[in-house]
């Protein structure tokens, strides 16, 4: 399993809203915590290599691998419930809080076409997944656990019932998988965990060390890589060379993030590294021309044209009233928009502004 691994000289870790705990020039051990999470559902961040911190800014930490040493493994076997949750999150598992849970859904379906990372985990890392599964079951104590797998695939996981998901985008996205598993839209007593989170929990349980690996798809192959491995190195491994004006996408082409440089590292949730060549269009700062394509294709049955227009003009409360919360960010509206508006960006902007306003209002009430 290790022969796919890519040797790491330089790791770049994306903070994604975590607060850095290290400063430039500091020596870190492998597995040392370098950033702490302040949002529920996001674990802390650890250095995948021993070395020296080369660069820290609000978005990323870069570590040069030229040191030695590794943190001591943590003893986890005696823990369960909230204690285990806290310990695992501290060790980097992206596990959310969930008080009472009826159904725990493990999403083993790759979100988009052309990604095979979760399939690869199911095929090659069964023991780790089982270990991770028993850990998350010990945390959430669900009445039942369901594994979502691709239709006609043979994969299963001991201790779970399987539900088959059609191989058609966006069926593999968490909210639609939850619908398929429970028969309800946005069920309150169910939680969907991506398979990579279970895998990472399993690695933590096995080694007692923080989560520092994930499986990514690049080209036709899957690689088990350290978190923070530069996207460019993974592309090089699969024989692809980015050229000027290409896009390196971390994740799938419908939802993934465009990397700012080939050095940008993969995160724990990155499922793929893709190279998108020109002439794929870039979004334009254009007004909605009212063609209605986005409305007709939106799987959440909302009106993306209105919502993005509200967001465009800062009318976030109206976007909320138009049910922006129902959007699960599949990107389909942007795919079809004939004006090439940056639909998903507007939607995320509005969601972010609404969350900020809510947090502020909460603080004021608390005072």
């Amino acid at each position, binding site marked *: 399993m290790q022969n796919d691994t890519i040797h790491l000289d330089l790791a770049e870790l994306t903070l994604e809203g975590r607060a850095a705990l290290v400063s430039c020039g500091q020596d870190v051990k492998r597995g040392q915590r370098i950033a702490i999470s302040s949002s529920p559902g996001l674990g802390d961040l650890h250095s995948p290599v021993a070395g020296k911190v080369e660069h820290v800014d609000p978005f990323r930490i870069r570590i040069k691998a030229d040191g030695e040493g590794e943190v001591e493994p943590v003893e986890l076997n005696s823990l369960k419930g909230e204690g285990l949750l806290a310990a695992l999150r501290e060790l980097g598992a992206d596990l959310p809080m969930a008080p009472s849970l009826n159904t725990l859904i493990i999403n083993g379906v790759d979100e988009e076409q052309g990604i095979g990372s979760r399939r690869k985990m199911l095929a090659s890392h069964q023991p780790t997944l089982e270990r991770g599964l028993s850990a998350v079951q010990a945390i959430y104590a669900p009445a039942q656990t369901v594994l979502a797998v691709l239709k006609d695939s043979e994969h299963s996981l001991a201790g779970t019932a399987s539900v088959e998901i059609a191989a058609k985008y966006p069926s593999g996205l968490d909210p639609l998988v939850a619908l398929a598993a429970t028969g309800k839209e946005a069920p309150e007593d169910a939680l969907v965990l991506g398979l990579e989170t279970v895998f990472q929990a399993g690695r933590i349980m096995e080694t007692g060390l923080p989560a520092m690996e994930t499986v990514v798809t690049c080209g036709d192959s899957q690689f088990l890589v350290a978190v923070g491995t530069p996207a460019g190195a993974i592309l090089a491994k699969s024989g692809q060379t980015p050229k000027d004006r290409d896009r390196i996408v971390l994740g799938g082409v419908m939802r993934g993030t*465009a990397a700012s*440089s080939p050095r940008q590292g993969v995160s724990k949730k990155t499922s793929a590294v893709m190279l998108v060549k020109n002439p794929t269009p870039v979004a334009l700062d254009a007004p909605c021309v009212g063609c209605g394509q986005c409305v007709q294709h939106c799987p959440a049955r909302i009106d993306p044209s209105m919502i993005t227009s509200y967001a465009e003009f800062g009318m976030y409360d109206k976007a909320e009233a138009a049910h922006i919360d129902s959007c699960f960010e599949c990107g389909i509206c942007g795919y079809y928009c004939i004006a090439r508006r940056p639909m998903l960006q507007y939607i995320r902007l509005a969601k972010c502004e609404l969350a900020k306003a809510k947090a502020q209002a909460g603080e004021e009430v608390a005072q």
Partner: protein
Amino acid sequence: MRPLQPLALTVSAPPHRHCGVTVRGRMGNILLAMAPAVVMAVASFGVSGFRVMAMAVAAAILTEAVCDKFMDRETQIHDLHAAVVGLSFAFLLPASAPWWLAAIGSAISIVLGKMVFGGLGGSPFCAPLIGWAVCRLSWPLFMDLDASMLNVELTYPLAQLKNFGLGFVSVTDLGQLFMGRQLGGLGAVQIAGVLIGGLYLILRKHISWIIPVGVIAGALITAALFNAADPNVYAPATFHVLTGSMMFGAFFLATDGPSSPNRRIPMLLFGLLIGVMIIIIRVYGVYPDGTPFAILLASLFTPVFERIRPKPFGVR
């Protein structure tokens, strides 16, 4: 690891793939879909038909460019929407329309039907219909198909029906009507050409089939009801569908994006309303062909229809 060269990567919001249809592509396809009717119109009306169309298209494009200049913004005439507006407006004019009528009407379509609302996508109305309505009310004599076309042998069946009654309509053969042997809007009456273009747009998924089907169904049903009440006074349903600008309106005007609803049930209701209104105007109104006013009226109802919508995902 070998050092990675500095690269100028493109960054952009997802999705990183696009269906490939652009505004320009869509408008280009609409122009292409209008081509058969253009050819038939030139065959039928000769140079005078061509002259009106060329004038209207040129005036529309020029007007939009001038508006953009005054509005101090980058012009979007390359998206071809102005050309579509101009040609659609010309399709509704008689071939005898004087050059100034084509130019002024087309300019009004762009100014009052599009630019005052901020450009493409802002207007609650289908732009060419605004120009048509203004001209129809301001210069009825020149817009009046019968009076202005006395020198051609073609007849205007809808005016004959309105003014003299069903017995005086000279062409009732559906095949003749289908091939455009009638007066009316110079392009709109090229029923065969319009139908070919409309089907092309539906097959290429540039327009949805729901609105055209709604319009035609609404008109057929209403006309059939009248016809059943008294076949000697009211024309048969098929006659209505194949005359005037009903077909052109159904495929090209009613399907205008911003002024029509976007969801299925509202689209169907919108289409049906247009179809019903066309026949009611033709039967009771003062205008022989009710299509433009029916569509303008239905556009006013678009926000009402749009209130019929499914529950968003996960909302209880």
